């Protein structure tokens, strides 16, 4: 799938999509492809908890791997997409929309500056093959 515009990406394949004061966090299409069929998501943060950049927010588990989701930004958790636990395959099928993991309140906008934009991330992924 095409990498959507308006999203920011970390080197460890997480994305952030800002929407006003809040943002959603998820994993990229590249990441879900590396993991293949995802069977379980373990959320490590609850609503109301504060998060630091780089902290492990969740662990995504597939048949052959388990990967940590590291926070690309710092802030506070507003909502957790708990429903994903029932349908983890959504992370594979729709990683950028319905496969979002956390909705957070940002507390440091400059965190975004260190992330890739869409074009930068695509180039980064190319260089890894």
């Amino acid at each position, binding site marked *: 799938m095409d990498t959507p515009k308006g999203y920011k990406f970390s080197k460890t394949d997480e994305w952030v999509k800002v929407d006003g004061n809040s943002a959603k966090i998820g994993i990229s299409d590249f990441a879900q492809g590396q993991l293949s069929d995802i069977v379980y998501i373990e959320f*490590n943060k609850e609503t109301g908890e504060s998060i630091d950049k780089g902290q492990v927010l969740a662990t995504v*588990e597939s*048949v*052959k*791997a*388990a990967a*940590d989701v590291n926070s690309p930004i710092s802030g506070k958790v507003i909502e957790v997409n708990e429903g994903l636990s029932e349908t983890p395959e959504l992370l594979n099928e729709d990683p950028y929309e319905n496969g979002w993991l956390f909705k957070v309140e940002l507390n440091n906008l400059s965190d975004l500056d260190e992330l890739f934009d869409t074009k930068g991330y695509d180039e980064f992924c190319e260089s890894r093959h």
Partner: protein
Amino acid sequence: MFIPHTDKERQEMLKTIGKDSIKDLFTDIPQSKRFPTLDLPDGISEMEARKQMSILADANNSCDEMINFLGAGAYYHYVPAAVDLLIQRGDFFTAYTPYQPEISQGTLQAIFEFQSLIANLTGMEVSNASHYDGATAAAETCISAYHHFRKKRGNIILSPFIHPHYLETIRTYLQSISEIEIRIPDISNPIDFKDAIRKLVDNKTALVMAQYPDFLGNIINYSSVSSFAHENGALFATIVYPIALGILKPPADMNADFVVGEGQSLGLPLNFGGPYLGFFTTRKELIRKTSGRIVGETVDEDGKRGYVLTLTAREQHIRRGKATSNICTNQGLNALAVTIYLSLLGKHGLKEVAYQCYQKAHYIASQIDKIKGFKVLNKQPFFNEFVIQCPSDAKEIQNNLLEKGIIAGYNLESDYPSKKNQLLIAATEQNTREDIDYTVNSLREVTNG
């Protein structure tokens, strides 16, 4: 002698490789260290090796030649002939870990059945494929509890009447985790654990663990311990003697979160302490925090039901540094032996063995209690193990009985210094009335009681 190569074959192979001699394959080894002398005897034939091992074995006296009342975590039960003969099938014992399920369904289905039998026996929802032994299973329980709370709760409360080796193993396993504090209440009556924990459990407690029956044989209802732990957000685990579950209420009824224990009594010989088997069961929602292999049911491309290793992403070969444990094996063939034992005994057989263990133990206990100077100390009901107070030096009594061909239980003083001259006596279905009566008379004789 298991090397099949002929001279001709060696030459052909070297020619293909392009080397003159086998020695030339080792040029990467630093020359000064290459081909050291081994100060070891020459090799011998199978016949001679068998003889030498036989001479070593004959320097032992075994439980089948004596009358045995030793328990303390390893029990001399009867192992049916079918168990040992089935596990000697080469397809079972020379197979590897079932990483290729298409050609390992024998092993995989046997483990799946093992998990089912153990889960049903303990009353818990899920079982893994086993740990090394009861002690390491207990240690892994502590680690699982610690990770369940994401390292935010570090207090672990243990009953002092858990098997001493298990307590030591837990300490060893947890020694490098500075956030963990092990608390063991200083009580002399096992039943006091129920009250003692009230002062020890707090909101930093990850786990409370006790043994059922405990090391001194006592059967205690830990429901109130379980409730109190849960009220404070902690988990509760029991270590259990599986034969006892043939007649006793399973710890699941006490709302245990983990039930673990030693599986040796389920069809494994004493073997001087190993290899044994640690079984590990828990609730379904905790399964991902646990270590060890798990086999799950699925179907193949043709729709045929079969089994595979599952949840492997938790394990060391994938998680590597982030795995909660480094465990790689389960006790494979031993788990198979346990599966066969439980299948053979079944519902009625296990109940019968448990019943006989209970009855034999209570018979000998009541007879010993009648000897002048001896007293059975257990204040709680017991299953097949109990503590007696001896009227004189227990070591000497044990030595005297040994000369009569009797192993008179386990001396408690080394583990509990205040328990002077107290012996832990265990009985199983293999102790005959004749042997019990002879033992009681011998005790009477050596103490002039």
